[in-house]
């Protein structure tokens, strides 16, 4: 379904969606982040890239899996806690971030379908926005099979045509959203269609950064596991959690029991984000650590994204959003690391 919506009618559309929880990018001090929208009038799609991607909504940093308790008779009770099913809409999803969800879909949707993830994923409608100009100077989606107007993972893609949005719906969920405010939407004219194509074509030309010959990288990395390359590249890494926590495609988690009372026993099993840059990541209970230093941790991040994931799922585990580059405290640049790896020893 394809429609156009006058820009000034956007808040009216949002108002019509009162049965949904609505998220949109909101400015907090010097940065943007997705938050629940409290007042439809504040919706603003003229935003820079958000610090965290919609991952923080679909796969939240903390999730209670179940509660446990023992009663007086020492009987153990376990109660599963699934996320509530209230439908949600996320406005202003960047095409790369939409694509990122198709990657986490693969991870949480193999033989075992993670119920927590899918409850949220299935009840959320993603309204994307074409990046007419790149929202970050480190965007490089074109180098990892993406595009500033990709529809992958999205239900609707909106494109800013100046005073109106061109809305393309690709799914039933998307159609429902457009149909919920029929009177606000018009059919696109021939000129609208022409403008759309022009903007989409131009948007690609504005992406400044790229990885050359990305396709050569996975095979090359395969032979670099034991290379001293990683020692040199990780020299300045401070082993923080920024690059992985902010990455829309990183999905590692940890599970812990949070005990609130020890007699009688009461508590929750909680899943939280984890990441390969921390010293206790996959540390064995014997004290052995398979990735004992920062070189092996940087290697894990790069190899997981550009070798293992490609072998498993035929996709890079990177959508080129540039967050890990812009926010790394010491300027470690994944594009540079990959290009150096590609040319290493040749």
């Amino acid at each position, binding site marked *: 379904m394809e429609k156009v919506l006058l820009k000034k009618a956007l808040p009216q559309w949002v108002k019509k969606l009162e049965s949904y929880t609505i998220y949109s990018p909101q400015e907090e001090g010097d940065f943007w982040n997705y938050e629940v929208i409290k007042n439809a009038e504040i919706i603003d799609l003229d935003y820079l890239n958000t610090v*965290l991607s919609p991952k923080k909504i679909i796969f939240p940093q*903390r999730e209670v899996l179940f509660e446990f308790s023992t009663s007086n008779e020492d009987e153990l009770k376990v109660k599963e806690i699934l996320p509530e099913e209230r439908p949600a809409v996320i406005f202003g999803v960047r095409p790369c971030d939409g694509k990122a969800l198709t990657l986490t879909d693969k991870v949480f949707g193999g033989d075992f379908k993670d119920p927590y993830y899918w409850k949220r994923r299935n009840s959320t409608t993603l309204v994307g926005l074409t990046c007419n100009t790149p929202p970050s100077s*480190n965007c490089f989606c074109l180098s990892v099979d993406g595009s500033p107007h990709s529809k992958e993972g999205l239900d609707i893609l909106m494109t800013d045509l100046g005073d109106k949005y061109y809305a393309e719906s690709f799914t039933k969920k998307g159609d429902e959203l457009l149909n919920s405010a029929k009177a606000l939407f018009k059919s696109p004219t021939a000129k609208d269609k022409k403008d759309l194509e022009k903007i989409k074509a131009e948007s690609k030309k504005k992406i400044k950064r790229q990885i050359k010959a990305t396709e050569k990288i996975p095979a090359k990395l395969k032979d670099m596991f034991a290379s001293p390359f990683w020692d040199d590249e990780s020299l300045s890494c401070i082993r923080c*959690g920024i690059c992985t*926590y902010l990455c829309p495609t990183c999905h590692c988690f940890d599970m812990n029991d949070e005990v609130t009372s020890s007699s009688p026993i009461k508590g929750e099993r909680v899943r939280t984000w984890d990441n390969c840059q921390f010293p206790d990541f996959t*540390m064995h209970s014997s004290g052995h*650590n398979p990735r004992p230093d920062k070189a092996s941790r940087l290697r894990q991040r790069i190899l997981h994204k550009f070798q293992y994931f490609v072998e498993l799922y035929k996709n890079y585990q990177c959508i080129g959003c540039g967050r890990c580059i812009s926010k790394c405290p010491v300027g470690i*640049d994944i594009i*540079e690391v990959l290009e150096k790896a590609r040319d290493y020893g040749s």
Partner: protein
Amino acid sequence: MVNLEELKKEASQILKEGKVKYIIGLQSSSNGLLPVPAFIKNPEDVEKLVWNPACVYNLTLFLRDEKRRKAKEKEPDEKPVGIIVKGCDSRAINVLLQEEFIKRDDVYILGISCENTGVLDEKKLAKKLKGKKAEKVEFGEKDDFVITTEDGKIKIAAQEVLSERCLECKAHFPVIYDVLIGEKTKRNIENPFKSLERIESLPPEERWKFWKEQIDKCIRCYACRSVCPMCYCDECVVDTISFVVTPDTPAEEKAQKIKWLEKSPVSSENFVYHFVRAIHLTGRCIDCGECERVCPLDIPIRFLNKKLEKEAKELFDYEAGFDPDQPSLVSSFKDEDPEDFIR
């Protein structure tokens, strides 16, 4: 104005003379205004070195890596490491010496004076430039910064874009060094705790609200800890590692290991993390401001440390990082102390 050529000359000389193993400095980056750390071994590579108002880093944090690397080597090279420091960073060296984390012979200090300026706050600059992108920033002739954007060069008075900590700096030239580059200019700061007083002056309920909102944003990436030269513990309370655990440690013993805080990024746990870190930095933080700079959620962590710095100054007349021989704040006791619980 600091002379970059002078820095390169000194750096090249100590490398050629074999005085140092390598030099920790900064070089320009491919993806933004800030330079990136450089570890220079060959004298010809000193050409890569940069020095400009975007040199915000406190490079002393890499002395931690150097120490760990050395500990693993069978026959470590005992030569010092060359390190480029600003005034604030040099205070960090003093604290590391005071705590005997490093020895004086471990470092060859190339100190640079900030003279009448300092380093910039990228966010302040971005606001000033209103959407235009700064491609380059250099020291100007008259306590100003020269910014290159796509539209050419503009001059901005340093005061307008300096980071808050530079405006409140107590050591604008290095307090310990082997070579000093630049002048020991005179400079008066009227109040080193001016920005903190904005928070202190809030009524308690509002202050609580402010901090709760800020701390709730924290995603516990621990970048603030990891970038801090004082956070050098091999085993940090926030990580669930323990060096006491070996393949022979019995399960019961492991189960009894205290968990100081949960991994969940919720108010209570976030507060525990930030309080622990603040307390552990009392009398040690030298206000390089790096924790606050790296926070991806812009949490004003510096104020927590600043508050304790102020308490230490007012209650004990103690300032960190000016004298490597002074007893440390939290491990010393004065007979005239009015509290007697510790006697």
